[in-house]
């Protein structure tokens, strides 16, 4: 995935909003890239641009050598939105099966995949419930399961673990890393948690608002194999510190 001087401006009633300005970034296949930055800095917008849900107003963006739109048509993306966005007239299992139906998976295959991803997000047994019967955290997990079900090459996740408590979050972090290691997917991941970003990523992109831009890109030197307690190593703490500094700098701009 290559972004070259990407600009994205929203025209609003009270003037243009520069959500992205001059964003350059290359993400290689199989990378795990986290985006972090103050709220309103364009993280969601950038992810949406990659998934061809917004069209940049300047610069160029290619995904696997295609335009984002072509990639979208080739069903390259699994997208987890900031809010769960489950369809209320379908059960949890039905919601997870929906993209599979659309992509034409067989019935047996669908059932098997639904079971598997439900297990992955620790929601076994909740397949028959309707979304409003679950707590906010459970809904968010269901929406993650939905994005995982069809094995897209590129996984884009917008604050997927925001509504979860630390313990479950840790477990899901581990599961995600595991999945990534096994499948070699390319993952774009938005988070507000510095430890989470450091723990998961091969690269951390720090962004800053007004206009939305990239202020720092930090390469992780951590090995690919990461037990949870790697978070107590000095190396981890050092990287986290760098990210925190980057973030703080972005905030300083603001004032």
């Amino acid at each position, binding site marked *: 995935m290559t972004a070259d001087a990407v600009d994205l401006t929203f025209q609003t009633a009270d003037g243009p909003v520069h959500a992205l300005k001059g964003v350059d970034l290359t993400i290689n296949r199989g990378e795990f890239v986290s985006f972090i930055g103050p709220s309103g800095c364009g993280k969601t917008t950038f992810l*949406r641009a990659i*998934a*061809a*849900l917004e069209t940049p107003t300047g610069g160029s963006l290619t995904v696997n050598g295609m335009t984002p739109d072509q990639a*979208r*048509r*080739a*069903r390259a*993306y*699994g*997208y987890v*939105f900031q*809010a769960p*966005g489950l*369809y*209320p*007239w*379908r*059960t949890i299992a039905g919601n997870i099966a*929906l*993209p599979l*139906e*659309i*992509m034409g998976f067989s019935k047996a295959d669908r059932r098997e995949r639904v079971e598997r991803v439900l297990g992955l997000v620790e929601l076994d047994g909740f397949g028959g419930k*309707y979304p*409003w019967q679950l707590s906010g955290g459970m809904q968010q997990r269901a929406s993650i399961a939905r994005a995982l079900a*069809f094995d897209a090459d590129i996984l884009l996740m917008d604050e997927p673990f925001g509504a979860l408590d630390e313990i479950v979050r840790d477990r899901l972090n581990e599961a995600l890393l595991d999945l990534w290691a096994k499948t070699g997917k390319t993952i774009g991941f938005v988070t507000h948690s510095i430890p989470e970003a450091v723990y998961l990523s091969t690269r951390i992109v720090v962004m800053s608002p007004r206009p939305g831009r990239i202020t720092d890109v930090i390469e992780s030197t951590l090995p690919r194999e990461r037990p949870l307690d790697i978070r107590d190593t000095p190396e981890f703490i050092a990287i986290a510190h760098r990210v925190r500094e980057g973030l703080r700098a972005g905030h300083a701009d603001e004032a």
Partner: protein
Amino acid sequence: MSRAAPILTVLLAIVVIWYLAAIGMNAQWAQDQAARAGTELSTQALIADTMTQDRPVLPTPHQVAVGLWDGLAGQAITSKRSLVWHGWVTLAATLAGFGIGSAAGILLAIGIVHDRAMDQSVMPWAVASQTVPILAIAPMVIVVFASAGVTGLLPKAIISAWLSFFPVLVGMVKGLRTPDAMQLDLMRSWSASRAQIFWRLRLPSAMPYLFASLKVAIAASLVGAIVGELPAGATSGLGARLLSGSYYGQTIQIWSALFTAAALAAILVAAVALVERITLRRMGLAR
């Protein structure tokens, strides 16, 4: 019990007000009659008279009830004097019109939601179409159809459809557009086709809107069928009853036909509501 109590209370209040109104509105006539006959009426005689007139300004509830009972149960249902028979004639046209109208409304809505040219050209004219006074063009519609050799149920059904397609169109357009940006974005991120988006997202989200407007539409269909009956030669159907009733000044007959029509509408709306409940429950949308 607890559900019936409020309705009964309101009905009771209406009946009381109605009797009072009947006394008030019919008194003039009773007094004029007395004056013409050169007699004086006691208050009691006046009240008694207001409740027993043959052509009252406002018939009393019991007069209407008797008229209804006579029309509904007092006749063989195949008799031309039976309200059941006339109701049936109207019902047939209503259902046909409802079918045509809602199908047209749904199809147009689908077109409008998916095709911008259609949205921009059809919608303003659909609004304009509803401002055409239907009673004015109904006779012409009937005549035009008759000259094309189409008579009987269909012309009435067309007029009825004319009135019912609009609520369905408006409701369905709104319903098909309810999916929010995120739900649509999800579909896009899966590269779903238009048909898939329609069947799996737009249509299910439109269901509550569809049913709400179907309820309006079926009542409108009934009105359309009745309006269509007037110029169809005023032979049979509740519309013909209403008209001939007013032609011969038979207020009680008008009110009985009116109540039959309203009851029919209530039953039809309740039937749609039932289908709605079942469908929404099946879809898991009823909580």
